[in-house]
């Protein structure tokens, strides 16, 4: 993966501070995939693995909550070595829907920072809106493709790095944090100033799936540059996944 010196420097500093493992596995995102369909689980698992993510796939919202440690009201910080960086869930599931899972995650003080992406085979605008309003990071219309995974990985990676800083300043709204970070950081602006709005226009993404991420990110838009930046070469350099 191409990295510039600024990012590497930042990560090393954080590793020292938080005593994280400095191995490559610390770089890999850990994704929790939730889908009741075995076929879809197999596909999403492969899509994520081939995109260099660690994957835990479960077949229901309840199991997802169990894995996170949410349902038992336990403090899950200790238990799970593999902290979840992203949750990707199907919308239509028996028992707990993806929407209900999303709400539970966002209601949790411990887990609400984790980006949640909803997948659905139905392209229903009302459903998409509802999910985004509840705090979903993105909404993917199935079937999920490699370009979809690359897109969500892009902005998740960015939040993953920025998120480390936030954990030392509790209770600050994530988006406000991103803004102040933009101003104070000495890292190349392309890394931090790209908002999720831009990730949907990655070069290879020709999928017809909607690009609603612009809606929830609107709160960060004031300090973010216009979408024109998405075409800037510096942003492409930042992109970790290869074509």
């Amino acid at each position, binding site marked *: 993966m191409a990295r510039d010196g600024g990012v590497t420097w930042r990560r090393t500093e954080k590793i020292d501070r938080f005593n994280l493992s400095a191995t490559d596995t610390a770089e890999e995102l850990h994704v929790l995939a939730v889908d009741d369909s075995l076929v879809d689980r197999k596909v999403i698992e492969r899509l994520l693995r081939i995109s260099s993510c660690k994957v835990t796939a479960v077949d229901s919202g309840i199991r997802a909550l169990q894995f996170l440690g949410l349902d038992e009201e336990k403090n899950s910080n200790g238990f799970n070595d593999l902290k979840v960086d992203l949750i990707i869930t199907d919308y239509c599931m028996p028992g707990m829907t993806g929407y209900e899972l999303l709400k539970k995650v966002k209601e949790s003080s411990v887990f609400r920072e984790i980006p949640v992406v909803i997948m659905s085979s139905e392209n229903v605008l009302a459903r998409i809106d509802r999910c985004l309003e509840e705090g979903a990071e993105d909404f993917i219309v199935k079937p999920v*493709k490699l370009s979809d995974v690359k897109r969500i990985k892009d902005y998740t990676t960015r939040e993953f790095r920025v998120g480390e800083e936030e954990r030392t300043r509790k209770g600050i709204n994530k988006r406000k944090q991103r803004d102040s970070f933009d101003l104070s950081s000495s890292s190349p602006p392309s890394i931090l100033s790209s908002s999720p709005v831009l990730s949907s226009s990655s070069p290879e993404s020709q999928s017809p799936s909607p690009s609603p991420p612009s809606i929830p990110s609107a709160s960060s838009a004031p300090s973010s540059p216009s979408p024109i930046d998405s075409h800037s070469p510096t942003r492409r350099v930042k992109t970790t996944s290869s074509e």
Partner: protein
Amino acid sequence: MLGLAADRLRADMNRLLAFLFHQGILDEQFLQLQQLQDESSPNFVSEVVNIYFHESEKLLRSLRSLLMDREFSDYNKMGIHLNQFMGSSSSIGANRIRNVCVAFRAASEQNNRAGCLRALELLEHEYCFLKNKLHELFQIQQQRVLAAGVRYPMQNI
């Protein structure tokens, strides 16, 4: 001689794939699955497709038993099965099957039992056809592996 066999097999495979795509039996999602197959996961496509076959047959049996029941009225349950079938079919690129599911679901939403029965028959037929064709495809691919393996290290198919 082995070279000729490999060439012929590749031609057979391409012809079959072209036919399946041209007829709309498969769509680009199937290509996406093929792109996910590599040395680290050399049987990915057939593994996923076999899971799909297994699940589809269960769903088809459920649908048939629902409709065969003279006192059938649970269109809601049928809708759930159909959504599952539609979802998994779209995930592997089984385009025509998915389209029949859409029509089937429409009939179900209108509580049109006769329409549902017709759709189910069409679905069973499409499914059988797809299964045969994909088995044929996997057979050719296996033969290609054997033909190539004799002379070369295994290459991406």
